[in-house]
């Protein structure tokens, strides 16, 4: 389960930030991109589990879904999850789950057929916000 690895990395990165800043962190928000089809509940569970015993044990972890926005650089149409990912088979979605940038290997622009796709948002998992204690 590579979600556990990612979550461990996130908890460590946020803890490092708290240490560097010398401040307590009250909340932090993790944006989960749609493209990679992560299970939001799983990420939340893992975050709460992994942060136990860490420097940010008491910080509240919030999860938000980041909408996928993929630009076709040929015709300038913008596509979302239901256009590019939903039509794919389980196996293909699994590959994009690991490496979201591979969307252009598996999907084309539904309008013009181009693979010149650029991910504008919603690729993977990132920390989008950190709130420190004053």
């Amino acid at each position, binding site marked *: 389960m590579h979600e556990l690895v*990612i979550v461990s*990395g996130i908890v460590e990165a946020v803890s490092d930030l708290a240490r560097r800043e010398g401040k307590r962190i009250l909340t932090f928000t993790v944006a989960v991109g749609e493209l990679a089809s992560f299970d939001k509940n799983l990420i939340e569970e893992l975050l709460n589990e992994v942060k136990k015993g860490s420097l940010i044990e008491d910080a509240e972890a919030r999860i938000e879904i980041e909408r996928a926005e993929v630009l076709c650089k040929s015709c300038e149409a913008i596509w979302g999850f239901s256009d590019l990912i939903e039509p794919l088979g389980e196996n293909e979605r699994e590959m994009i789950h690991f490496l979201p940038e591979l969307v252009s290997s598996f999907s084309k622009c539904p309008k013009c057929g181009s693979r010149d796709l650029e991910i504008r948002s919603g*690729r993977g998992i990132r920390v989008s916000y950190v709130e420190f204690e004053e």
Partner: protein
Amino acid sequence: MSSRNKLDYREVLIPKRLKAIKYILMIASGKGGVGKSLVSATTALILAKNNLNVGLLDLDFHGPSSSVIYGGLKMPSEEEEGLVPPVVEGVKVMSIDQFVEGRPIPVSGREKREIIKELLALTHWGDTDVLVVDMPPETGDVLLTSLSYLRGRRGAILVTTPSKLSLKVVDRLIRLLSETGVEILGIIENMSRLELQDKKVSPFGLEGAKELSSKYNIRFLGSLPIDPEASLYADEGKPEKLIYTRFGLELEKCLKKTVLLD
């Protein structure tokens, strides 16, 4: 290069992954088509045969071929530690091709950099003596990103053909690497001659790579013949045979001149 996002989990994970690796051997050529991937894949096999614990990371977006050379790779397995690469002939192999299975990878520079970071962060190599990296075939920012993440004890072997174009690109690559402080273990000249019965034909001359080596005071490790047998075994995915071809045996001699096998 863009500044590092300290909250990016990959920035935390990559150094930890690489800590388990004693030496990172980067195989670079600056351009494609010179045999960089064949040299990388065969080098990994040779090192493994010499009882080293070896990984091969294929970052050659333009033609990820380690999957073909290794006879078709299974997907890495998803374990608690991350993605665990399949092992072929004693080599742990990770390639973008395992994910796309021969499909094109039409991605921009920024996307390539994301993929490289993700692969480095997620792959669980475990204790490894040498990680051979088939470097991106270019001299631009994707190469620089790879260099900036592949930290630790590291060195590069440069592959060129005798052609003027290849030599020129490697010349540029040498200057780039010296700016980034990467040690160059040596230069290998690939496809240097054709051996027909008793006759050796060197269509491009023999001195180019040697001259380049002495210009920069870099070790010339040797030259590899055009070897139809090696090319056949690569296409057929017979790694166990590759190391015993003329190409493989000559390559082993080159590697014996480096810290990797002495």
